[in-house]
């Protein structure tokens, strides 16, 4: 879908992933573009989060509404819209779970067909075990130990998820991502109870 758009002001052609007119320097309205392209980073699960942050900050240095406060209402509006889009894309890519969801979608896999994996008995049992261990832990030392175990499980799942993306095994990736989101929920729960 590499169709050019037209600058609202000088009618110059604007390439798909560009939001500033090269001719008149005017900011352009938002367009449908995936999060990776918006950020200008390569489409991979194994993102360097520091690189992501750098790309994000660089974009905000250009598109944040503070840079347009002196310009027309229209330009302020576009910068608010674009800046919001950039904020959201950054947050989504910064989390492994939503990043995996985006990648699945981009590869034509509908993450909503995930229901089956809820019934995956192995995953359910694994999760139950972790929860029980934490609930039965008597000292805070023991609780911390079970959180450590959970963290290990999270990084293990992340590694497997990364491998399945590399092998383009999206059905497996989807299952792992569901598991990961469960583990992450439990982790937040545990932290609150500490």
């Amino acid at each position, binding site marked *: 879908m590499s169709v050019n758009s037209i600058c609202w002001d000088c009618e110059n052609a604007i390439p798909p992933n560009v939001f*500033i007119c090269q001719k008149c320097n005017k900011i352009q309205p938002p367009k449908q573009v995936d999060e990776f392209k918006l950020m200008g980073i390569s489409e991979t699960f194994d993102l360097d989060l520091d690189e992501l942050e750098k790309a994000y*900050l660089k*974009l905000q*240095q*250009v598109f*944040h*509404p*503070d840079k347009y406060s*002196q310009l027309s209402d229209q330009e302020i509006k576009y910068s608010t819209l674009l800046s919001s889009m950039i904020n*959201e894309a950054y947050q989504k890519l910064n989390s492994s779970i939503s990043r995996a969801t985006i990648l699945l979608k981009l590869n034509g896999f509908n993450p909503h067909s995930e229901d089956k994996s809820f019934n995956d008995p192995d995953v359910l049992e694994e999760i139950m075990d972790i929860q029980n261990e934490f609930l039965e832990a008597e000292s805070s030392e023991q609780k911390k130990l079970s959180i450590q175990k959970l963290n290990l499980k999270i990084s293990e799942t992340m590694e497997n998820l990364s491998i399945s993306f590399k092998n383009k095994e999206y059905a497996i990736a989807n299952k792992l991502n569901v598991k990961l989101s469960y583990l992450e929920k439990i982790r937040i729960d545990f932290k609150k109870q500490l």
Partner: protein
Amino acid sequence: MNLIKIKEPMSSKNDAKICLGIDFGTTNSVCSVKVKDKFQFILDDNGKTLIPTLILYSEKTKKFGNQIIKNESYFNSIFSIKRNFTKDFDKKIYDDENGAKISSMEVSKDFFIYLKNLCEKNLNQNVFDCVITVPAYFDEKARSGIMRAAFMAGLRVRRLINEPTAAAFAYGLEKKKKGIFFVYDLGGGTFDVSLLKLSDGIFKVIATSGDPNLGGDDFDILYAKWLVKKYFKIDFDSLNNREKLKLVKKSKLIKEKLFETQTFNEKLKVNECVKEIEINIKDFNKAINNLIDSTIKISLELLNEVDVEINKIEGFVLVGGSSRMKCISEKIKENFETTIFDDVNPDLVVSKGAALHGYELLNGSDNVLLDVTPLSLGIETMGGLMEKIISRNTPIPAIKEQTFTTHENGQTAIKFLILQGERETSSNNRKLGEFILSNIQPKPAGIPRITVMFSLDADGILFVTAKDEETGIQNKLSVKTNDDLDLNDMRKIVESSIENAKDDIHQRMVIEAKVKAKSFLNEIESVKKDIELLCSKNDINDIEDNVNLLKKSLETNDCDMINQNIEKLNKATESFAQKRIENDFSQVIGKDVDKID
């Protein structure tokens, strides 16, 4: 995204634009400005930078700040007006110099006018642009209330920024610091904590928290309670309001003296009984201990929430007048293994940050300030629960959409209740406003698709739109109280009033007339259907002509003409207003009014 480096249209230093930085504090306010590369604080007529946020209305005169001497009149002055912004700030609870009842917002407007005049005197020119700081934990209503008060004072608010963010901005620029910093901002009425990451020219807020009703004022109350109990054996709550107020103000004066001297003697008068008592810092610390502990708790919770280890943080930056108290840095050291940076003036740094940011907004810069929203925003759903649409600590600006549907067959309208807060049930969160989307096509329950869009701009001000996907019918809501105008409309009115304004007073009269006219026009617009239904063709034409006349006069800055046209439109709609009352009445009774005996 392919980035194309754009050059900022930098104006030459000589015609650099001026933008005030206003820290409107609970106890003290500070204004500052950067003019041609030189930063300066605004001084009042006594040569002071710290301007007490006090207003005194007495017969035919108004006094502000240091004009109010700390004697009997000090005890009659309005203080801590900012605290009312988290409550009902439109309630008319004060008497002005003419004895008319006015609201907290109008009192604040007068104070903003005083500050504006001081700045103009210092700079020897008219100034309209400003950046105003607000507590990071202020909710939507409080933010828009402050903005409205400043607009009515004739100030063009270029940005609202959070106080801890402003402080970190000034601190980071001045000391050229990098890394993650924890800003602990304890003011006269509010407590904020913000975690920020500073890198080259970028000031990014990671998360923020606080308590909008915890500050120096609360210490004064607790200490006053402790004093009367200890030395007079009286329960503070049994005293009358005037006596309470006097004691709290006295307690504040004693607290301020304690910043300099650890012990001294002081005469205290309660119910006509005077005692000389020994004031001691230890007693004071004991009296307020619980409140200090709750600031520590909020700080710990924030760090826990964001998953940032304490050893990753460069240190704590202390901001706000109340952070001067020794017991605070001691408590922080007890609870956190960290460095405390107290190499800034905690009273002045917030205003400085606002002024520096204001300068950059108007004159261009490579620096960027990225902030977050302090409280979650959402709407009420079935069963009185709050459905979050934007969660707290989301970077702003933020635009989020969610689709809702009907729950009854044939339902043609949906009421949206907008909420802010962290609790599950809607009754425990702050109500921001409500609106109704009507004329939905009648369909079985669950079929209509209503998209609700929350748009939070860079000032942290919320705009909500609901749209029926099928009919395209839209309804908009901006958070406001009563029938006030949309903030964007108010901003435009202020902007237009600046052109050709003869003087400040004239400018404010123009603003007032335009606000009144615009509200009236909005009201007419909202009853347009009823007018067509109830009025004769002649009346409809007459109203329409007068609406157009008023609209036309809004393009000018002629406030006499605007007011005259308001009056004309008022006359033209008189018979409609009458018919509407009769109509409402007859609907209730179910009969024609003429037939009622």
